[in-house]
């Protein structure tokens, strides 16, 4: 809800996400799909729309889309139809994109999003359909000419359309992160927005709370969640400003300028293309065997929501911690590997605390963590069995991050093994108490707070290696004497 000077406004957002399917070959041609290959090296005559070339559907891409649909708890349509979306552009070699229109592969589904206030809301999925990507026009290679790179032409995309169920930029961001997590869990899209694997069109309108939907504008082709959120915020403010001045929002397609943080008109409804959709006569309707779909369903991996529930039940984690850990499948897997046979809370604290901080600092993803789950687990074991204290463990961990060395080796090499010899600790305690006789007197006169000071002094005297529990125990004894 946004407060205007004439009252409250509600922003209504629906998202169309173009998610590139993880597959070795394109949707209809068999050409390779590697990112970053030299221009026009992953192009078959089918992708270049040479005369007489025909599309043949890549079965694996269909499987990936079905898997995604099931992950979105959606209906799978056993019969779907590929249609041609006709328009002219040099990076669209055939002059049409093969897409699905009237009969998509996947129908209604939903994505649950966890809102900051602790509630969970279902965002409706309208449909998911398969389509080909276009190539890329390069306008900056030559002063007068445009170049075309067809490597991307024909790569399989899933267009995932949401209902207009989102109410703020923040919700849109949460939805996109969740959707991306689901696709990554499924292994159907890597969600890599910098490489264009996930691109977003936002439909934004504003209305008075409870009123009918306002006129929407579509902001095309956003390639980061941050831009999506900025674009929605800007666009909602722009529309509210127009309406508050008594104007009318014009239905438009707009582009977001990330440098200036504004949206600009691309084309109005009158200039909209007439895509002349019709069923592609080169492709038969796609008819799926229900047994095949059932098999895909049976082999679905555990998805974020289920995993979160299990983490709460199985490991006793808080909803918040479980939510953080399951946001990426790799984090959840890392956590579970660390937690196996250990105290789960400790494992969660280490993963979410020291590990995440270190990865963030170094700009690494958890897949590239310099510390393996086994190593982190062993470090935790060293604390648990009293070999080192928690404080020393942080030191050891810092070194593990830098060098990748084994925790035990670091402890041995640096002589960090915890002193649990009661006699040695008692000697250190005695020495400290003798030196600090006046503070001992104050303590005994009732300044309880000095206990911590004595602990600190003992730890210092033992270079931090003394077993803190023993230090506490012996100190109390000696002070009580």
């Amino acid at each position, binding site marked *: 809800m946004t407060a205007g000077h004439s009252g409250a406004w509600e922003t209504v957002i629906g998202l169309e996400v173009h998610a590139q399917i993880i597959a070795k070959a394109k949707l209809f041609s068999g050409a390779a799909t590697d990112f970053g290959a030299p221009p026009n090296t992953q192009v078959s*005559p089918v992708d*270049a*729309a*040479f*005369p*007489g*070339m*025909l*599309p*043949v*559907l890549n079965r694996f891409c269909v499987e990936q889309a079905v898997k995604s649909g099931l992950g979105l708890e959606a209906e799978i349509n056993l019969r779907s139809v590929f249609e*041609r979306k*006709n328009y*002219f552009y*040099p990076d669209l*070699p*055939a*002059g*049409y994109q093969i897409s699905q229109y009237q009969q998509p592969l996947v129908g209604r589904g939903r994505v649950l999003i966890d809102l900051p206030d602790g509630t969970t809301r279902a965002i409706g999925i309208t449909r998911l359909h398969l389509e080909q990507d276009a190539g890329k026009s390069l306008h900056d290679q030559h002063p007068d000419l*445009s170049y*075309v790179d067809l490597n991307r032409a024909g790569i399989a995309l899933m267009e995932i359309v949401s209902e207009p169920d989102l109410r703020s930029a923040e919700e849109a961001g949460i939805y996109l992160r969740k959707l991306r997590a689901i696709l990554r869990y499924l292994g159907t899209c890597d969600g890599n927005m910098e490489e264009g694997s996930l691109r977003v069109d936002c439909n934004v309108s504003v209305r008075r709370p409870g009123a009918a939907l306002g006129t929407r504008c579509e902001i095309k082709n956003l390639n980061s969640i941050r831009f999506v959120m900025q674009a929605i915020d800007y666009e909602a403010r722009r529309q509210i400003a127009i309406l508050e001045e008594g104007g009318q929002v014009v239905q438009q397609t707009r582009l977001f300028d990330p440098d200036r943080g504004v949206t600009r008109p691309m084309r109005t409804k009158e200039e909209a293309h*007439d895509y*002349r*959709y*019709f069923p592609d*006569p*080169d*492709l*038969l309707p796609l008819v799926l065997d229900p047994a095949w779909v059932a098999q895909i369903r049976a082999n679905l991996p555990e998805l974020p929501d289920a995993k979160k529930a299990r983490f709460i039940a199985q490991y006793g984690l808080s909803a918040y911690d479980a939510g953080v850990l399951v946001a990426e499948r790799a984090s959840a897997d890392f956590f579970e590997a660390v937690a196996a046979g250990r105290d789960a809370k400790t494992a969660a604290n280490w993963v979410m605390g020291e590990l995440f901080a270190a990865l963030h600092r170094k700009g690494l993803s958890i897949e590239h963590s310099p510390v393996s789950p086994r190593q982190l687990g062993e470090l935790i074991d060293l604390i648990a069995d009293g070999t080192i204290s928690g404080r020393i463990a942080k030191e050891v961990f810092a070194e593990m991050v830098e060098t990748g060395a084994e925790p035990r080796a670091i402890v041995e090499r640096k002589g960090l093994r915890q002193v649990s010899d009661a006699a040695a600790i008692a000697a250190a305690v005695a020495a400290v108490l003798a030196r600090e006789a006046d503070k001992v007197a104050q303590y005994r006169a009732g300044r309880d707070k000095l206990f911590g000071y004595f602990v600190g002094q003992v730890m210092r005297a033992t270079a931090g290696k003394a077993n803190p529990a023993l230090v506490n125990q012996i100190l109390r004894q000696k002070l009580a004497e």
Partner: protein
Amino acid sequence: MSASLLALSVAELRDGLRRRAFSATELARAYNAAVEAARPLNAYITPTPERALAMAAAADQRLARGAALPLDGVPIAVKDLFCTKDVPTTAGSRMLDGFRPPYESTVTEKLWRAGAVMLGKTNLDEFAMGSSSTTSWYGPVLNPWRRPGDNRPLVPGGSSGGSAAAVAAHAAAAAIGTDTGGSIRQPASFCGVVGLKPTYGRCSRWGVVAFASSLDHPGPLTRTVRDAAIMLAAMAGHDPRDSTSAPVPVPDFEAALTGDIRGLRIGIPREYRRDGMPVEIEQLWRRGIDWLATAGAEPIEISLPMTEYALPAYYIIAPAEASSNLARYDGVRFGLRIAGESLEDMYELTRAAGFGAEVRRRILIGTYVLSAGYYDAYYLKAQRVRTLIARDFARAFERVDALLMPTAPSAAFAVGDNSDDPIAMYLNDVFTVPANLAGLPAVSVPAGLSADGLPLGLQILGRAFDEATILRVAEIIERAADFRHRPSFLAEEMR
């Protein structure tokens, strides 16, 4: 010697080559000369004599080893709509000027693998759009037939007019074409040869320049029904590269020519008896019915009520698909490019210069019928008609085994006739388009001459994937008609 070689059928050539009565090289030389001699017909766009000799030499080696392939050494012509690797492929259009495909179409690949020898690429209506073979950028094809005592040039029909004319004039032993609304059968009828449109999905469309994907059918044009059976066997078969290709076995079509049609029920669709149909065509049809009855078949009058809607439905669906299929000719990647000030300029200049009037007309019609607001009224309705036409046939085939009807409503007409009246031109396809809309096999076989001495064909239409039956029936007509007339232009008589 060579003159008599040119007169032989594919079946006769096959046997003669295996007997070593003549060599494939000898035969290729004779046909290369015939292709040269037939230049006045403009049947070929690109003759490939060197390739013919090289292929013939390879065939001779196999023949000598006794390892002959089914079509070893048989010289054939290829409609210039089939992509042939490194050989110019024009579709009769300026748009594909300079285009040499880096691939070979499935059907031609199969023919070469069967030992056939390529004589060249034949002329056609631009992008196969036409019924007269007069819309080619490379000029009109002339029919080797003339009306006796009348020297006006006639059209060979279209769009596979170059293929039909070449076979009729003995400038090819056989040829392949494509049939989208009659483009094999109508020119076969006009030129006095056999033209077979197989079932949709029988022959792969991979590597065939698309006109209307759901209606395009590759098929053979030959001098005899047996030759059509031989050619089809080599061309047919499932192709995983064409999603609409049917994964069904290819029977021995030649073995189906038993000469026995006793008990076969032949449907005679009353809706094909049109007002204003020339009497001679009506008479020819009757004669055909009598021939089949005499051979022991049972003619049964049937009704195909949706017939009158076939032509209008066809002239919506075919242009709709064409408007999309031809969008790839944009000057960006291959063929003609006329540079302009802007991208839109380049598109407009290239497509205006590259496409002829008929192609432009169909692109406009197709774009219109798919446009928002018109789609339901035109394209969708036409698709419904198409479904109903298929249902008509399905019902008919509950009662009969094949249908007999004329191939075309007239004999060949003069070059220039109908050229300013697209509707009159489109009416040529009235008897042939239903089989395309339903995807059913149909064959045209020469059955007689018109009053002014021009060939007329009868058409036999069958169940899906039952080419065997229509070929069997066609052979009965062929025998009964005993069509021995020859066109006024024969390659061997031109030297």
